[in-house]
């Protein structure tokens, strides 16, 4: 009996536990709030969308979109290339014209500047030449004057010392041939001519 009773008791306890758990879960379900209709629709829509737009469909769409996008990009790239070429040629032409005009203008200015500079250089050279010529003339005149003065100075000096020069020359040339005896007559004549003066000197000196 005991074992039977024990088994009965255990089974009753387990059944009571299962019933308690079921009751609790039932009560939880009953206690949660009920969803609104919109939410239910949304849930349903989502569920449908998930059903329709599944991964395969999405991949298909993605592939199509990529192809279409590539096509559009290719077409537009061609147009863009044509436009770009046209724009480039126009830009080149414009640049050529602008640059040509600018260059011509600049060259004109440059040429004008060079012409002015050349003219200035020519004027400067002319002035320098004139100045040099004037200085040359002045120098030549000064040199001529100085040479003339030096020449005159030498002539004057020669003339002043000419007596000594000739005397020296005579002395060197015929000094040994001059005999005092030959000069006696001249010496006596000179002494006679200056006799009074010499006599006066002697008397006053003595």
């Amino acid at each position, binding site marked *: 009996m005991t074992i039977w009773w024990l088994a009965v008791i255990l089974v009753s306890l387990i059944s009571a536990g299962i019933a308690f758990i079921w009751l609790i879960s039932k009560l939880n379900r009953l206690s949660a709030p009920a969803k609104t209709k919109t939410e239910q629709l949304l849930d349903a829509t989502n569920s449908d969308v998930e059903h329709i737009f599944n991964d395969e469909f999405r991949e298909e769409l993605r592939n199509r979109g990529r192809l279409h996008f590539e096509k559009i990009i290719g077409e537009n790239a061609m147009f863009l290339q044509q436009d770009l070429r046209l724009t480039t040629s126009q830009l080149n032409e414009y640049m050529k014209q602008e640059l040509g005009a600018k260059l011509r203008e600049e060259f004109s200015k440059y040429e004008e500047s060079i012409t002015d500079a050349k003219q200035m250089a020519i004027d400067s050279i002319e002035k320098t030449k004139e100045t040099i010529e004037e200085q040359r003339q002045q120098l030549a005149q000064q040199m001529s004057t100085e040479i003339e003065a030096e020449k005159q100075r030498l002539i004057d000096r020669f003339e002043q010392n*000419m007596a000594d020069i000739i005397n020296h020359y*005579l*002395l060197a040339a015929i000094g040994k041939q001059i005999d005092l005896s030959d000069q*006696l007559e001249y010496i006596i004549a*000179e002494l006679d001519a200056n006799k009074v*003066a010499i006599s006066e000197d002697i008397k006053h000196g003595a």
Partner: protein
Amino acid sequence: MAHEHLRLPLSVISQGDAMRLRRELAVLDEYIKQAELREPGTSIKALPKTSTSLSEFTQDNHLNMLKEEDRANATEFLKSISEHAPVIHISFASDPSAAFMRKLAAWFRESIDPAILVNVGLEPSIAAGFTIRTLNRYHDFSLRQQFVEHRELLLNGIRGTAKQAKT
């Protein structure tokens, strides 16, 4: 004074000549005095040799050098000449000969002063002619001075020659 009538011989020209003659006369005078004091029997020195100048001086002035009075007069005269005679300096380009100087001295003593002494100098740079220097003045009768005085003449001559050479 006793020696006033004496005159210098033409061989005595310069102050040097006069001094030499004076010294010679003094030596002679001394010799004669020594000879007079000599004691008989002692040796006597030989008579000093007299120069041409002294001989000429004694002959020209008729002096007897054995007489003390004449010697005294001559000594006094030469002393007076050495101290007071006028002196003139004359220079030539070369050394004059003795004959030349005698003629010159004769002229000076006849024309200027009988007692004048002439000192001779040498000045080669004058080339020819002579210069005279007294106590106060200097006379230049040289060829150099002649050139200087006639410089214009020389210049004109040179300029004329230069012009002829140019043409």
